[in-house]
């Protein structure tokens, strides 16, 4: 017993020493440095969707490194504060509470998932902290009309009808089976697709929500029996990939469709040749491949040099979101003649006109882009390495539907 007690004590001593060490370094930094400004990022850095989440964080990191110089020149110490929301609303909200509690944080970039952004942004709204979203497409993100919430991408009530238009007109599909992941994003997209399909007279053979990630037998069997022309999956690639593979294995020969949640090279690793066999697979997205943005060539080069891998979807949007934050803080700091308040930054973000990689970013009165770009992409890849062979079938600029009723 004594021995155990001794061991426990020594562990405690070591732990407290480690903590003390951390404390001192933090303290010295603060004393030596100039006025600190932090910019937060929140995206899934671990878990099944981390590939996209890390891309957002790394895009923002690169932007801070390349564009943060002006603020540093004004005597500010600008730091990145990355948070991992694990693609889970609870974790996102808990992090959001931490973020708003840190008064040095003046602006934020995030999230990946609308279902996480919507509850977390309530915290940002209460605290008056501006957030720029690189990826959230659910209309509700901005239609609440919060001053603090902005996004640099399009919306689901435009991209889901675009997917439906593609299925109905280009593919000539007469029937569809809709599956969603029961998140705010997935279910929202699915509802928009369904409404558009019903308007066109396309037959909706099934509308299922599922949180299943491994065994889709029970969904695939009735799906195959009803034999739809297209299957629309509203969700994220890590779940969709398994579903596509199992449905194809079980004998489904039609076309799979999806939205921007499919835009990850991991999809090809998980689903393999299920994406190209039969009727193939296509998706709409609000974030085209970086090659679609003429101004992003240097970004791709720098990103690859820094992180050792080509940028995934949303990396460029992460870069632009950070760019918007930095430009707004600059403007607010100049106007205020010192470190600006959160309210000043939030106003400045809404008023920004920023020449970004993906477009010239301005926000309308609810924080949407007045016109956003949408893409339809056909998948040619069967593995991660060939993801760049996917082909842009169509791209168009569409106006934001605004606040709605």
């Amino acid at each position, binding site marked *: 017993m004594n021995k155990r007690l001794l061991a426990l004590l020594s562990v405690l001593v070591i732990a407290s020493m480690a903590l003390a060490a951390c404390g001192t370094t933090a303290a010295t930094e603060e004393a030596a440095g100039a006025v600190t400004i932090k910019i937060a990022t929140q995206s899934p850095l*671990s878990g099944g969707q981390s590939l996209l989440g890390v891309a957002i964080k790394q895009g923002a990191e690169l932007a801070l490194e390349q564009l943060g110089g002006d603020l540093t020149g004004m005597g500010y110490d600008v730091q990145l504060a990355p948070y991992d929301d694990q693609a889970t609303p609870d974790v996102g909200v808990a992090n959001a509470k931490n973020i708003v509690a840190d008064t040095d944080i003046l602006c934020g970039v995030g999230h990946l998932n609308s279902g996480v952004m919507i509850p977390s942004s309530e915290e940002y709204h209460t605290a008056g902290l501006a957030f720029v979203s690189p990826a959230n497409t659910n209309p509700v993100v901005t239609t609440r009309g919060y001053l603090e919430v902005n996004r640099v991408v399009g919306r689901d009530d435009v991209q889901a009808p675009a997917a439906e238009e593609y299925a109905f007109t280009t593919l000539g599909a007469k029937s569809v089976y809709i599956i969603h992941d029961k998140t705010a994003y997935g279910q929202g997209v699915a509802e928009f697709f369904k409404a558009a399909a019903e308007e066109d007279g396309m037959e909706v053979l099934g*509308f299922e*929500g599922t949180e299943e990630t491994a065994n889709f*037998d*029970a969904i695939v069997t*009735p799906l195959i029996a009803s034999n739809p022309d297209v299957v629309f999956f509203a969700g994220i690639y*890590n779940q969709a990939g398994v579903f596509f593979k199992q449905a194809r294995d079980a004998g489904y020969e039609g076309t799979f469709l999806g939205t921007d949640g499919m835009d990850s090279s991991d999809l090809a690793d*998980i689903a393999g040749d299920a994406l190209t066999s039969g009727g193939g697979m296509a998706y709409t997205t609000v974030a085209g491949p970086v090659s679609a943005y003429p101004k992003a060539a240097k970004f791709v080069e720098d990103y690859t040099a820094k992180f050792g891998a080509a940028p995934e979807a949303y990396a460029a949007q992460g870069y632009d979101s950070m760019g918007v934050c930095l430009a707004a803080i600059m403007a607010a700091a100049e106007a205020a003649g010192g470190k600006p308040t959160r309210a000043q930054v939030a106003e400045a973000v809404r008023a920004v006109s920023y020449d970004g990689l993906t477009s010239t970013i301005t926000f309308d009165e609810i924080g949407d882009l007045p016109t956003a770009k949408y893409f339809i992409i056909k998948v040619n890849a069967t593995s991660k390495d060939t993801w760049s062979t996917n082909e842009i079938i169509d791209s168009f600029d569409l106006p934001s539907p605004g606040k709605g009723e």
Partner: protein
Amino acid sequence: MKQFAASPVYKFFLFPIGQIIMFALGSSVGLSLITVLLAYVFKFNVTNFDLVERSLLILPQVVINGLTIGFVYSTIALGYTMVYGVLEFINFAHSEIFMVGGIVGVQLIAYFEHLGILATLNQYLVIALAIILAIIISGSLAVTVERVAYKPLRGAPKLVPLISAIGMSFFLQDAVRLILSLTTGEFNVILPQFGTFDEFLLVALPGMADPLRIQIKSVIIVGIAVLMLVVLNFLVNGTKVGKAIRAVAQDRPSASLMGINVSQIISITFLVGGALGGAAGVLFALKATKLDPFVGFFPGLKAFTSAVLGGIGNLTGALLGGLVLGLLESFAASYLSIFTNGAFGAEYKDIFAFAILIVVLIFRPSGLLGETVGQKA
């Protein structure tokens, strides 16, 4: 006849296999009849197609899906029920033992692919090697978990090791997550495509236009699961070790007085349960093709439910419970949406399956086979 009934071939081979076939057939036929009956009842509800015809069309496939996942549940459920039989506590870390087995098996196959020999090796040999490795790793992990987390608590009140088990479960999840994401930050494990497992056996059924499509995977999963169940039956009922396990389950102090090393027997119980869980993990991976460190939770919960449904502590009960739950789930998921015209979708399958579980437990609190068979372990 009596002599035949006592012969080892009958006792350890024909009887258990017969029992498995009987359970599988019985529950499939029962549920199928109920479904067809319901199809006639709900016929008025659906106007755009013939409900009875559609129901019959997918019925064989639904049964096969249900049996496949049902056998996986049974194999996991045996781990819960064996430990309960011996120690009377629920080993909640068992779902992680299962997950580790699956991940280890897939990693081995991925390693073969990395070496470039996956395509040249015999596909059945690959599966066999993956299962053997999973059995070794999961079995020893289960024994280690018992040593570290349960043995020091053996004299404590029963809730204490239960909490310890839940803690162990979280620890293992995140430990595996840490190990897998050390180099890449990515912890999805994807089964490489190999062999002919994704292909179908076409079975022509009399009176049906389309032949029944049975995936080779499903046949392999069911075959291996049955094999393991038969081996386990022999181990528990036909060997000295099995006799000792049963003795410890029935009365630990007396067994100890008879010269049985109780600690050793408990370790063996965990070893066997863990080995079964690990093998089930590989079978599940074959089906699911993508695993992560948290994949064990739901199959584990379902398997635990199966064990309770069948009568916890009862080996035959775990087998029956797993099959019934797998079938129930498959039927509910496939038919709810069709019968209710889309009002209830597949996402309600668990509510439906667990509602039936509650009903069964109201009328038979000790599970389907809980009372009729006195023997535990």
